[in-house]
């Protein structure tokens, strides 16, 4: 708003100019000699200059930023007393100086009189404007929009009335009374808005009372001055000026007086206000501690201090209950021996750890016998739905010192504390959790590295593989190992259970596989350099005997494919049956062989429970090996995927490449168990035997 800013810029010079005109006019009135030479200015010029001066000062003051900073009412009043107080002091000083001069030279200089008068007039108007807008800040503190609108009307009405008085126009008697009465009522209504007083504490209230008294004193000084010289001004200023000024005093004085009274009568209740404030602050402090994530110790200390301060306890202590024991966490003006004595007494009465208020301790014989100087006691337990955290004990020397409010306040304090403590524990737990998760992630990546990434590639077969753990780490495993003489060992297995334990055993099993599949240098026959599958299983069973816990077992199947001779030998140790497509018979079936899981029998009799199976494959045959996570996957009705459905899938897909068969099966499985949680790790290997490539035969 450029216009608004331009206006603001010219206000100050304009006001100063008005005052200079006023000064000139008054001086001319005072000095007939000068008036004779220059000519006496007409009265309206004086009045207009004065009116503009008043308007200028008020507008300037109005456009200044709100003098109230936050809720610093005392600061505002201090400014008001210091600034305009100085003005009043200047006024008194000037007047005294003038009186002194007049005393020295009686009937002397009227010019000095007129000068001092004009200066004081200026000072007074500045004082009024300052006071008026300071009051505005107070009246409009946290005000409604309606009150703000009312204030504008009040300003307009006051201004209009003042202007009437200034120009010496007096409305007919009833109208004048009506207008004056209206302004008075309005002023009274405005003076009633003393909301700010409630925000002061006791000390501030006393300060405010004294400052308002000072302010009234300043007002009184100015009023007295203008009343005193009222009769004497005829020659220097129009009479109407004074009635205007006196009316101006009305609102400023009235508001100061009303504020003074309100503050004064608020003094007795200030204690209650402060106590409530203290309670709220205590609660706030406690709440803030939660966010800061301080230690439990600090939370307890905070509670203890806040509680003592709020109920003004003469003695107090705090019991803290941990999983192991109960101990005194904090004490205030009471010895451990006394604490112990009271605690024992309360326990005898079955009153420990429950909410309890006794305002007449000397009346209880048990307590009398302790001979302690206390009259009232509050016990406030700290507990949540889960557990007890201890209790807060507050003592006062006077009887009948605690009331229901104290009790409910302490209740709020303790529940807030319990909340903080549990929150802290949650934070600790979640940090711990975070760390465990981090470690699981590491375990997961370690395990991932145990699963072969590069599948064996050769002309004689193709392999598709899939492995997915239900949790971060799993118990399924598979591995490949090329053996000399165009042979390939394939191991698949599943450790009972899931998670970390299973993952450990899975890693162990992989170690066992690589350790046992080493060439035996003592073997006479090439074929005996590596253990046959059943031998491998008995050796693995023996190796696992000492490291597998009693209720754990491992199922595994080992296949050794000899693709020079087109056959394979395998042993199944309790593992899922192998699904097989015979290309010549054009038939899909399971190899239903016997074989006991590893770790079930932990002695040499295991050998009797494991057998080798030999099979000659043909090009085009497909072997599907998997873990129970596949066939036991649950569908929407909780039924299992099952061997039958897997078999049907192979019947429909055997002609595809190994990877495509695997994908088709997985798609069907995912479709089947859509929306169901994954219960178990899933591993699926599809091996398709192929005819030898032509160049291999050349």
């Amino acid at each position, binding site marked *: 708003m450029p216009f608004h800013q331009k206006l603001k810029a010219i206000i100050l010079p304009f006001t100063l100019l008005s005052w200079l005109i006023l000064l000139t006019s008054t001086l001319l009135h005072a000095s007939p000699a000068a008036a004779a030479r220059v000519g006496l200015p007409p009265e309206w010029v004086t009045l207009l200059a004065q009116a503009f001066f008043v308007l200028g000062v008020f507008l300037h003051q109005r456009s200044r930023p709100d003098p109230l900073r936050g809720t610093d009412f005392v600061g505002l009043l201090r400014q008001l007393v210091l600034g305009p107080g100085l003005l009043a002091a200047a006024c008194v000083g000037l007047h005294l100086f003038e009186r002194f001069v007049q005393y020295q030279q009686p009937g002397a200089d009227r010019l000095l009189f007129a000068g001092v008068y004009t200066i004081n007039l200026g000072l007074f108007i500045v004082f009024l404007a300052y006071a008026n807008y300071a009051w505005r800040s107070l009246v409009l503190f946290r005000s409604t929009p309606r009150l703000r609108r009312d204030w504008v009307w009040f300003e307009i009405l006051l201004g209009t009335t003042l202007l009437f008085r200034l120009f010496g126009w007096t409305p007919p008697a009833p109208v004048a009374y009506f207008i004056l009465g209206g302004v008075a009522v309005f002023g009274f209504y405005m003076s009633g808005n003393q909301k700010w007083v409630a925000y002061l504490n006791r000390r501030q209230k006393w300060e405010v009372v004294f400052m308002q008294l000072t302010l009234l004193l300043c007002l009184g000084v100015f009023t007295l001055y203008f009343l005193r010289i009222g009769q004497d001004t005829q020659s220097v200023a129009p009479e109407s000026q004074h009635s205007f000024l006196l009316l101006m005093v009305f609102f400023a004085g009235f508001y100061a007086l009303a504020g003074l009274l309100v503050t004064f009568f608020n003094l007795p209740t200030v204690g209650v206000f402060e106590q409530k404030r203290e309670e709220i602050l205590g609660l706030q402090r406690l709440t803030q501690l939660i966010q800061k994530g301080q230690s439990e110790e600090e939370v307890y200390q905070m509670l203890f201090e806040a509680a003592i301060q709020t109920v003004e306890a003469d003695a107090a202590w705090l019991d803290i209950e941990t999983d192991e024991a109960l101990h005194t966490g904090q004490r205030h003006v009471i010895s451990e021996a006394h604490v112990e004595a009271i605690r024992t007494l309360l326990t005898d009465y079955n009153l420990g750890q429950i909410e309890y208020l006794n305002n007449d301790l000397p009346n209880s014989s048990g307590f009398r016998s302790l001979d302690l100087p206390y009259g009232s006691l509050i016990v406030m337990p700290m507990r949540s739905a889960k557990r007890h955290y201890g209790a807060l004990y507050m003592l006062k020397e006077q009887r009948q010192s605690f009331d229901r409010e104290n009790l409910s306040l302490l209740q709020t304090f303790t529940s807030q504390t319990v909340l903080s403590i549990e929150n802290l524990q949650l934070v600790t737990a979640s940090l711990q959790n975070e760390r465990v998760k981090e470690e699981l992630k590491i375990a997961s990546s370690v395990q991932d590295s145990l699963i072969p990434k590069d599948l064996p590639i050769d002309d004689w077969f193709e392999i598709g593989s899939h492995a997915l753990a239900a949790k971060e780490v799993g118990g399924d495993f598979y591995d490949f190992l090329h053996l000399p003489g165009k042979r390939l060992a394939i191991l698949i297995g599943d450790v009972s259970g899931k998670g970390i334990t299973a993952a450990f055993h899975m890693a162990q099993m992989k170690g066992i596989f690589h350790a046992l599949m080493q060439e035996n240098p003592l073997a006479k026959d090439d074929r005996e350099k590596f253990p046959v599958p059943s031998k491998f299983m008995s050796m693995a069973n023996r190796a696992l005997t000492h490291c597998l816990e009693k209720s754990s077992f491992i199922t595994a199947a080992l296949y050794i494919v000899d693709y020079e001779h087109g056959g394979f030998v395998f042993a199944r140790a309790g593992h*899922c049956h192998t699904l097989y497509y015979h290309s010549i018979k054009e038939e899909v079936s399971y190899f239903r062989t016997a074989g006991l899981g590893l770790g079930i029998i932990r002695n040499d009799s295991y050998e009797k429970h494991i057998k080798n199976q030999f099979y000659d494959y043909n090009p085009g045959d497909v072997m599907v090996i998997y873990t129970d996570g596949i066939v036991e996957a649950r569908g929407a009705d909780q039924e299992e995927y099952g061997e039958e459905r897997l078999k049907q899938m192979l019947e429909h897909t055997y002609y595809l490449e190994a990877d495509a068969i695997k994908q088709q099966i997985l798609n069907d499985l995912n479709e089947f168990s859509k929306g169901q949680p994954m219960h178990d790790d899933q591993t699926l290997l599809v091996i398709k035997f192929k005819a030898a490539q032509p160049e291999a035969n050349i």
Partner: protein
Amino acid sequence: MKITQQTTENTLTLSLDGELDASSSVLLDTELTKPEVLDYRKVLIDCQRLNYISSAGLGVFISHLQRFQDANVKLVFFNMQEKVHNVFEILGLDTLMTIVPSEAEATAI
């Protein structure tokens, strides 16, 4: 999972109702671990209402197998559903444990 007990002079019969998974197998383990179980000559497991058995459930039986044998207590399963029997069979447990079709045959042993 619900486990109900029935005792005669030298036979303890446990009827399993529901799914024997990781959490419910703890219940079963508690039952089988009780020392008085070994006072019976036979412990019969009625599997008629056993719909599912996880590896943890199998682990419970496996872990007590040796203990029962050492104490000369016979562990006999009967009324086993086809799919549960299949799980025992795949793991090879049918060769180690006595599984019979009916209660009459179980008591006759």
